[in-house]
């Protein structure tokens, strides 16, 4: 059993403490917006916020997430109101297949919190998610738009 605080709600989960946080979020908490892409911290599809920082949840054990505030893609929008990043994503028509985009948006949201006006170099350094559809050109435009919004 583990108590996880996800999107402001406490979940009592029947889960082995050595389970990757990704799978506890997807399978026990039932929040499937966070995606599995590689399982070895390479692709970023599983990115969530833990204690306000972007982490790749496939390589975080549940036991290390206990007691921390976890935010997933489902926890960003308040009702129908999107965050600036999500809105910029809509305005710039960013996603193609969309599978990487939850992780991308979580990584970008953390970047903008740390650096509200990131330069291209900041983006290059912080955003290392893989997108096989190749949405990077729109991702960069949308990050700058979100920073201005």
């Amino acid at each position, binding site marked *: 059993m583990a108590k996880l605080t996800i999107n402001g709600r406490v979940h009592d989960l029947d889960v*082995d403490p050595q*389970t*990757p946080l990704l*799978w506890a979020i*997807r*399978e*026990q908490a*039932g*929040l*499937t*917006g*966070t*995606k*599995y*892409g*590689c*399982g*070895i911290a*390479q*692709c970023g*599809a599983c990115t969530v916020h833990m204690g306000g920082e972007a982490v790749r949840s496939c390589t975080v054990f549940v036991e290390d997430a206990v007691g921390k505030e976890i935010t*997933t*893609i*489902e926890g*960003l*929008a308040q009702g129908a109101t*999107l965050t600036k990043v*999500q809105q910029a*994503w*809509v305005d710039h*028509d*960013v*996603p*193609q*297949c*969309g*599978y*990487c*985009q*939850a992780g991308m*948006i979580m990584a970008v949201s953390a970047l903008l919190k740390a650096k509200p006006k990131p330069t291209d170099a900041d*983006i*290059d*350094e912080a*955003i*290392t*998610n*893989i*997108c*096989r*559809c*190749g*949405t*990077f*050109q*729109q*991702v*960069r435009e949308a990050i700058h738009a979100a920073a201005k919004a």
Partner: protein
Amino acid sequence: MNEIVSIDRRKFIIGAATVGSGLAIGFSLPEGGPTVVRANDGSPELNAWVVIRPDDTVVIRMARSEMGQGTITGLAQLVVEELECDWSKITTEYPTPGQSLARNRVWKDFSTGGSRGIRTSHEYVRQGGAAARMMLVQAAANQWSVPVSECTVAKGVITHTSSGRTLRFGQVAEAAAKLEQPKEIPLKDPKDWKVIGQPIKRIDTLEKVTGKQVYGTDLKLPGMLNAAIRESPVFGGKVKSFDASKATGMKGVRKVVQVGDSAVAVVADTWWQAKSALDEVKIDFDDGGNAKVSSASIAKMLEEGLSADQAFVGNDNGDAKAALAGAAKKVEATYFYPFQNHAPMEPMNATARYTADKCEVWVPTQDGEASLAAVISASGLTAAQCDVHKINLGGGFGRRGAFQDYVVQAVQIAKQMPGTPIKLIWTREEDMRQGRFHPIMSCKLVGGFDANNNLTALHMRLSGQSILAAVRPAIVQQNKGMDPLVFQGLARGGEHGFGYTIPNLLIDHAMRNTHVPPGFWRGVNINQNCIFIECFMDELAQSVGQDELEFRRKLLDKHPKNLAVLNAVAEKIGWGKPPPQGRFYGLAHMKAFAAYVAAAAEISVSADGKKVKVHRIIAATDPIYAVNPAQIDRQVAGSFVYGLSALFQQACTVKDGCIVEENFDTYDSMRIAQMPKVESIIMPSGGSDPWGGVGEPTICVAAPAVINAYFKATGKRLRSVPLKDLDVSMV
């Protein structure tokens, strides 16, 4: 609608109750009237593509799949253009392949590959919209007792011009559905298009930015269990035995099963439990005799093919061999392209539920009908007892169309637990090991010049794997052993026709197949062919001191559309003028999938030649007609990410009969820092040529343009992919 449809109503109702398919169709005979086909909410169908609800919502049904390319948005534009409905009131649905089959394949081809999603369905889809509009206007005219010619229609409202009376689509849909289908369905002149050609935003974005879109991996069904699988890593190998004693006792594990003769799966409450338990199953595989195959042994076989006597001729004219023998000057080079994996972000998966008289599968698929065929054969049930619910794909790139191995596996597992839905998800490692790989190919090119430095002869000898020999052997048989697809971009005319006119030409293929299963990988054979021909064109031009653009122009004078895209990128990058300090340009072009594409790359290279920065790529594409320029722009830029990742970073190598690279740590993919600025020029030439594709053609021009620019920067010719193996990386 007079069409008499004989169909089991119960089947569709069951379909309606299931997750993953929004579509359900019921049929009813309204008292006294002709047959009206109805959606399960009772709304009338005007034809297979268009259902109109009383609140004016237009439901557009599409057989093709959405896997990221914006295909569904583009297809909806085609329907809306002719239907004249309100764009903000549309919604889309997938019919199931079983429903289509039961109605005599009314939705036609489900296959979403070969860049065919739009180009091979635009006509009947537009006709679906036009026919529905004609019936709606007729119904309104009937109600007013006026001739149709006195009515106009816009944004879902029909107006009787002289009296000013109006009716909404939702108000006349019932009456319209009872009318005869029009026999003649004229389509608009392209110059009158208002929706086609517009850079409309995609209709499926909100779900994707909020995490709400349900992918195959996210599916939840009542009572569902999860499965992880491991197949023989040596292709063609079989399970000899397995020891599940440790796994069966692990938490959540329900069953350990053999799947077919080559794989073992663990079924558990959660996927993570299944995967963890699978790691503890000891499987003894019989390698089937392929464990000795390695990249080196394959390379040796390909090398032999480069000079073999027997080869299939894909394109020729004149007498290339004689002309080369008598040439005043000869140039020769050998290129290589490796196996590569599609690696879509979403690993292969499928969910199956099997009972003795029914089998249903939920799957992200590029071809619902191919999935259905797999379900039928794996379940042993009849077509009427099976169906497939399509789910939007987390990337496809050719892996999820012709190949339905994961569907077969899911059904084979579900058959061993009847009644229980089983969701099978592959690990990334399984996905990398069990690909359907980009074919491996070597190419030797020899060019000959006369004494005045005119190119008089070219021989291109391809040596390597055939996709069709493995996947569509009947086509190879029809062609007396030849795989015509090998010659994409090099063929004698057609949608993949060779653009250069060379007096003595021979392009032939020594087929050298391996035990590694090949597949259609975005762009298919143009990836290697464009590198081979377009890099060698630069080599030829340089060998006689000619400008690379001028050299091509002379050879392309019979193909103005090829020339037009090449000229467009050359002009925009400023070819012929000196580039900025430290920057270098390279060009490439191709015709593929009936579209014309070209690229001009601008790069810089570190002093030691090891680090390449691709600053920008100008890309021209002529798809004949452009349905949505904003989405085409995204396909161009996205295809370059896929193509440049392949050029610099990706190879699947073979050791002991298995694929070595098992995840993104050894099979890297481009990140945002490496992304060049992509400036696309969309230049549809229109007219009566067949429509060209968009998702694939442009992918092939990025790599040769960059390689050609690299030569300009360093004087060094790169002839083998991936460049990381030549110690050249992208920064």
